[in-house]
């Protein structure tokens, strides 16, 4: 039996990987879609309560986080451009900035959550069951949606850290950068979801 006959080639097909990533993004969109559906139904039922509760959140922190995420979305796109131009150094810097922004976002979120928890506003607290249904649902949704979003930030960061080291070791280069491309796509997804979360959670009036 010749070696050639039994050797399984690693078929490389970047188009396929990219399509696969897009399909995965679809599932993520619908995962959050389910939550947005829940949000829209409860909001339609309790518009005033949702409005009052949203005043409890700080628009400034939300806006800062939005800017941070938008900016990181741009830098990760620039990292891809840098790799395409075979500029390894810049690519590393851009991925680094993105990771820094992600950490800043989580840091911000940590304080925001901490502030709420200090006031006894968290699921399972003594205060929560005393709220009326609209407020209760708003804060449940707030913690669940931003929590799930933060989880996605952490997943995205992990992906980008992997990309960082692969760029460093030149496993990601101007001939083969589909992994970074997919990591970037995932990061944009995280940004995309926040684009909707921000106005719906912080700005509704």
């Amino acid at each position: 039996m010749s070696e050639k006959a039994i050797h399984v080639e690693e078929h490389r097909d970047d188009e396929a990987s990219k399509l696969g990533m897009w399909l995965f993004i679809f599932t993520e969109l619908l995962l959050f879609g389910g939550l947005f559906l829940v949000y829209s139904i409860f909001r339609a039922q309790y518009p005033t309560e949702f409005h009052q509760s949203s005043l409890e959140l700080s628009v400034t922190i939300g806006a800062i986080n939005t800017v941070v995420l938008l900016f990181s979305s741009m830098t990760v796109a620039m990292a891809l451009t840098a790799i395409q131009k075979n500029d390894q150094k810049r690519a590393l810097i851009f991925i680094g900035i993105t990771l820094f922004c992600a950490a800043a976002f989580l840091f911000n979120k940590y304080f925001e959550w901490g502030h709420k928890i200090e006031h006894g506003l968290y699921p399972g607290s003594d205060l929560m069951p005393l709220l009326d249904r609209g407020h209760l649902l708003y804060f449940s949704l707030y913690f669940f949606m931003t929590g799930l979003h933060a989880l996605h930030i952490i997943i995205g960061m992990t992906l980008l850290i992997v990309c960082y080291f692969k760029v460093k070791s030149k496993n990601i280069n101007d001939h083969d950068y589909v992994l970074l491309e997919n990591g970037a796509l995932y990061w944009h997804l995280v940004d995309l979801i926040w684009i909707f979360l921000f106005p719906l959670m912080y700005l509704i009036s």
Partner: protein
Amino acid sequence: MANNTTHTIEYRTLSKILLVLLFLTFVTIGVTSFHLGPFTVTVALLIAGLKSFLVLSNFMHLKYESLLLRILVAMVFVLFVVIVLITFIDYAYR
């Protein structure tokens, strides 16, 4: 390299897109601080839609992808909106 089909977007373009996105963010914050009644949500969602369109088409390179992929992305959003609308057939008439 036949595999590298992804279009390269210049730094300058990307930074321009960011500026537009930031501008739109502040517009949303500005608009929602006025009391437009039920239109506030509509306006906020429209701007969010515009922003996501920019992210999708530029940052995510969708502008340069195949027609098929663009149709699929649109299909997913349409499907989601249809599901929401159908659910509201129940909730709106309760």
